[in-house]
């Protein structure tokens, strides 16, 4: 599990955003001193985290530990109260930032898929390509076909979300995100709304993305997958990151009490 290995990046380097290529060793995504409260409840208490290029980082923790909020702050679906977020070294928090430009470089996959029910799979993918990247219909269709092929759904381009299984819908959602060639992908519990037998397909797609060098930050309860595929596991409790490291270390030798409690509960559960 060496995260320093340089893999051939299948994604073309993103030329549209005009950002300079990240300096060697500079993380793709950096979260520094993030704080967020809902009313009087402090959900994130000073969270810092960085994700290196082509790294897959798994965030574990009980529900209510703040992991989803942290993820949603990364593309500012939630507005953090304070703290900085840097994408390829570029500050994306603060007032002057063009959020729409930033968000196209951060892909997001939701627990509930959030596919557009009035559009078929292809048009779910092409909407942002056409309206955000201003591609022509042909360009967008070509890129959508490639993205759908990448998630194994080349033949479902004409199907509407209601005609797809949950697993297929989530894969279309992944295609929708990767078609924009984002610098990093955020996964917010991508498999927890799925029937058990459909989880494998989605994880398979995520595994392939990782092999292709995609940078990924994943909130999920798929322990076995985290252990096998993640480069690093981050454990959150109570709005803090209490522990992080290579999956083997975290799973076999957790240092923190809450991590131990969480892992033992899960291993009993399985």
């Amino acid at each position: 599990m060496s995260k320093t290995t340089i893999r051939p990046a299948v994604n073309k380097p993103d030329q549209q955003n005009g950002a300079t290529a990240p300096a060697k060793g500079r993380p793709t995504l950096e979260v520094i001193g993030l704080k967020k409260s809902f009313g009087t409840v402090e959900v994130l208490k000073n969270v810092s985290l960085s994700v290196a290029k082509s790294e897959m980082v798994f965030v574990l923790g009980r529900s209510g530990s703040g992991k989803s909020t942290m993820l949603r702050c990364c593309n500012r679906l939630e507005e953090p109260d304070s703290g900085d977020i840097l994408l390829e070294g570029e500050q994306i928090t603060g007032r002057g930032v063009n959020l729409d430009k930033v968000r196209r470089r951060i892909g997001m996959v939701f627990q509930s898929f959030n596919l557009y029910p009035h559009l078929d799979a292809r048009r779910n993918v092409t909407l942002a390509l056409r309206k955000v990247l201003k591609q022509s219909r042909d360009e967008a269709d070509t890129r959508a076909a490639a993205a759908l092929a990448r998630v194994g759904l080349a033949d479902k381009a004409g199907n509407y979300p209601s005609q797809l299984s949950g697993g297929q819908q989530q894969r279309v959602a992944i295609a929708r995100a990767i078609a924009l060639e984002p610098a990093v992908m955020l996964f917010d519990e991508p498999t927890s709304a799925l029937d058990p037998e459909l989880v494998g397909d989605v994880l398979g797609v995520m595994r392939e993305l990782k092999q292709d060098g995609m940078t990924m930050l994943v909130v999920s309860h798929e322990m076995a997958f985290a252990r096998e595929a993640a480069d690093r596991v981050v454990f959150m409790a109570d709005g803090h990151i209490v522990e992080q490291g290579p999956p083997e270390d975290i799973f076999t030798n957790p240092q923190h009490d809450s991590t131990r409690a969480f892992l033992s509960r899960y291993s009993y559960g399985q």
Partner: protein
Amino acid sequence: MDQLIQQFFNIDIMMRAWPTIMRGLGVTLLICCAVIPLGLAGGLIAALASTARSRWLRWPAVALVDLFRAIPPLVLLIFVYAGLPFTGIQLSPFVAVTVAFLLNNSAYYGEVFRAGLISIGKGQAEAARSTGLTQRQTLVHVILPQAIRNVLPDLISNTVEVVKLTSLASVVSLGELLHAADLARSVTYNASPLTLAAGVYLVLIWPVVRLLSRYQRRISV
């Protein structure tokens, strides 16, 4: 029985009233062409304002919508047509009808659109924004198409009400269908022109009413 037919279904009188009534129908359709698009546009604006995040926008919008839902359209029409001239603003019957119905219809269409907008889960906007679509693009390409589809029966049924409402224009002597028929009635001392007008309304509206009932049954099964 004979008298009933003579009074309500007098073919002779209907034939004579026919050209007048057809002209009236033309005016009715013209009013519809002005009032329906304006009402839809006003309703959309009302709905966007009454679902806005800022309460300084939301509350006045909701209050205005409720106000215009509480005032009978005829009162609004007479206020605009007969009240405004006192301030020196003299509107033609057509403009008065358009203005009064714009206020009334915007409130009703606004409620329909609002129901559609709040029927769309937050996740749709989040997904759209996460791909870099702007707020406006999200509204136009993601939220509205779904919202409109969800409330299409209500939009159509409200439009039926708008078409029926155009009959009020007869009160301000705008020569639409009902006014034309009533004029023929007063000339002939016979109700048959009104029956004919009712028949025209039925031909115009009944198919839509039937369709809506069908649709309602389909979704309830």
